[in-house]
């Protein structure tokens, strides 16, 4: 936390500094940073980018679930990422590659609440990359399920 604050003060950051607990750290080829070449987000900052919600069934829950969060597209736009590959990683070091193309409006969402409740670590939180599986059969593939990273905490953006 101290290092983050120090580096934040040293660099010419464009992003505000997180005030709450940092939920997501984005590194790599990004244009906006707030801490030593990386962008750190707390829940308030994520909310600041834009709140989107959708309902969908998942293979991990019973019945339709309502997710609320920021779309991956909006987040990447905030960071000036237009192409390349994302390496999304979870708290347990699960990692998967996601093409930037995947981040379209109406596409994947970095959700922080399920059915109106924030998600704990024990409950696949605090951030979960979910897709609107019902809207497109293409989202009902193993690739998409594998990209549905729960307990998401890091994204590394790689330029081609």
């Amino acid at each position, binding site marked *: 936390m101290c290092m983050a604050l120090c580096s934040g003060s040293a660099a010419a950051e464009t992003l505000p500094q997180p005030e709450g607990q940092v939920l997501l750290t984005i590194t790599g080829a990004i244009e906006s940073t707030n801490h030593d070449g990386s962008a750190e987000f707390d829940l308030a900052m994520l909310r600041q980018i834009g709140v989107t919600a959708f309902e969908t069934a998942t293979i*991990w829950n019973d019945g339709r679930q309502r997710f609320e969060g920021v779309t991956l597209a909006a987040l990447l736009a905030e960071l000036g990422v237009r192409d390349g590959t994302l390496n999304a990683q979870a708290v*347990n070091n699960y990692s998967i590659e996601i093409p930037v193309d995947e981040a379209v409006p109406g596409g994947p969402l970095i959700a922080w609440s399920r059915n109106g409740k924030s998600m704990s*670590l*024990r409950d696949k939180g605090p951030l979960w990359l979910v897709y609107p599986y019902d809207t497109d*059969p293409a989202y009902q593939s193993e690739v998409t399920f594998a990209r549905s990273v*729960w307990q998401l905490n890091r994204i590394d953006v790689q330029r081609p």
Partner: protein
Amino acid sequence: MPPILARQNMPQLLRRAALTLAAGLMVAGILVLGASVRKELQALATTGSDNIEWALSQAEVEAIALSQEALTASHAPDVPLDLVRLRFDLLYSRVKVLEEGPLFAGLRTDPEVAKGLARVETFLMNTAPLIDGPEAQLRPLLTRLSSQAETARHDLRDIALQGIAHFAEISDVRREKVAATLRRVAALTVALVALLGITVMALMRLNLLNHRVAESERQTRSRLQAILTTALDGILVTDRNGVLRGCNTAAERMFGYPRDSLLELSLSDLVMPDALPGGLAPLSGQGLVQCQARHSDGAAFPIEMSVSAAEGPDSPIHVAFVRNISNRVAAEKALRRAHDIAVAGDQAKADLLAVMSHEMRTPLNGLLGTLDLLRREELNDRMKRYAAIMERSGQLLLRHVEDVLGIAQAEAGQLTVLPEPLDLNALIAELVEAQAGQAEQHGNQLIAGAPEAALAQAWGDPLRLRQMLLNLIGNALKFTENGTVTVEAEALDGLSLVELRVIDTGIGITEVNRARIFEDFVTLDASYRRSNGGTGLGLGITRRMVQAMAGEIGVESEPGEGSLFWIRLPLAPPVDGAKEPDCDVPRGLRVLLVEDDQINRFVARDMLESDGHVVTEATDGAKGVAEAECARFDLILMDVSMPQMDGVRATREIRAGGGPSAQSPILGLTAHAQPAEVERFRNAGMTEVLQKPVTQAVLRRMIARALKASGSDTFQSGQVAAWQARSTPLLASRIRAELRAAVGEHKFAQLNDAFIQDAVRFFSAPPDDLALQAHRLAGVAAVLGAQALNVQLQALESAAGNPEEVADALRAARECWLQTLSQVTDGDTESR
């Protein structure tokens, strides 16, 4: 539809049904296949599962991580327990996935898994408060947490193993399902391919058939085309309106138009329109029709065509085969001209013969008549012998002349046969008796065969029969010496077929001669007495007479042994069996004899006077008319050919003159009694016509008949008309036919109708100017061939002044009109 057709169409219907079924099956197969494959593809494209093995193993991995972290932390009391907490939370979330995820619902039903999960759950539930609690409470329990996590790890491992088996099974089922679908797809594909193969084969077969049909049609068409092109007849095809739709090259040549311009024409441009008022349609199936056609250069030429109808694309078409018959017509014309010339030549010959024989018969008549009279005088034996020789020679000469006349008449088709009741037995007996003397001269015996009773009732022309038999007997006697000539008759089929035979034992006839002896002017050199030979016309005339009597003649002969001439002919009386009444010979009549030839006058007068008649002579027609004006005669004998006024004109004047003898019977005398002439004489008013030379017997019979016909010895005007009308046909079909031909059917019908209306008007209310109207109507009746009515109306006209006679005449005329009307109205039965 008739059953035959239905049966013929059955295979076609079946084939069509099969094809439809196959197509339906294929479509269904494709749909089923498509749906199935689509479903499988979708199932493969989407998945209901995450990476299950990862999820399963990751739970164990987190349990191990927790156990390790707890153990590590238990040995480092200064290090915060954040990592232990993190590991716990991660394990918690992993187990929760197994507990709650719908993916693992199947797995959770396994009792072992359920128990294991329950144990892990219990561990997590019990541990969670510690983890969430203060570090001081947690730290002493880290070692136990580590071993508990280790225990949970074993459970999670077992669950993972169970899961692997479980999902492998699911995977197997699913694979099996895919395999089954693929098998179905394969089977369907095979079936589809087979079906396609069959369809292709069927289509190929159909195609082949179509090719064959098309080829055969092409051949037929090209053959037809060849026929049409090479046909000598022109062929025209027209539609219903007579517009030309097709033609062949012969038609192009015939009408002189190139094909394209021909097809712009209408039938009426080619065939004279008045010939075909209704186009081709009425001619269809009528056989050959002749009419005039027009060439492109305007020349008309005769054609013959036959038309038939055929199915057109939208309306019936007519096909006409047209032949230019110019050459034929020209040839026919030439032939007709040649024929006419030949006939005219023949006619000239016949006329010459007739005139010649007439010119010879008139003096002969005088000669023989005088001889007849001479024999009644007192003659000495020598004179009698001379007279007999003269008479025989005269008779022979007369027969030759008659032979020639007979030929001429036969050639002119004027050989008349007048049948009457006849005793054939008596006729033969009479002939045999009469010829016996001649037979004896050459030592021949002439005998009659046994008489047959039936033959006594025969019906025939005695004159002709006698003539025929005399010719045959004469021939037989000529070629027989010291032999026998037998004359016999036999009813072969009752009187319907009677055979007359003249059999001799003479020299016979060779086969070559047998073929030609019935020809004219044939004389056989082998004749015994060439000097006695005739004109060579005897058998020719006999043959013609036999034919005129609907019979046949033939000869059988063996040279050196004799000949048999036979005649077979019908001699049965007509069905009504009318019999000529016997005549009483009338006597003491006042007779006017009009004859320019002195000898004939002398002969006739003598014959009449010998029967007790009173004769007044007139030497020419005019004098005869004058005599008839002055006195009333019971009978007038009128020579036909006289200088100045001939008998016909004299007769007409006597009848028209209204003198005392105007209604007396008039007997015409002529040497050339051709039937057409006789008709003319009768129309002039002659009652009967006698053929010269006249014998006493004939004269008697004719006088009796003429008087009998009138019903009394004297004539009243009404009666003479009635008698004339009776002897005149109601309708002269020939006159009507000629009129019809001259004015055409339509005009004829109009004339006929007008005549009927006039007559009906006349008879329903006799007009005041009766004589004038009767005269007028008589003229119309004559034109229309109502001859009897014409006669009656003339009588009415002449009776007009006399009220008593008018009533009778009018009644008779009306009666005659009613009979005429009945024939006129069903006029179509008339022969045309």
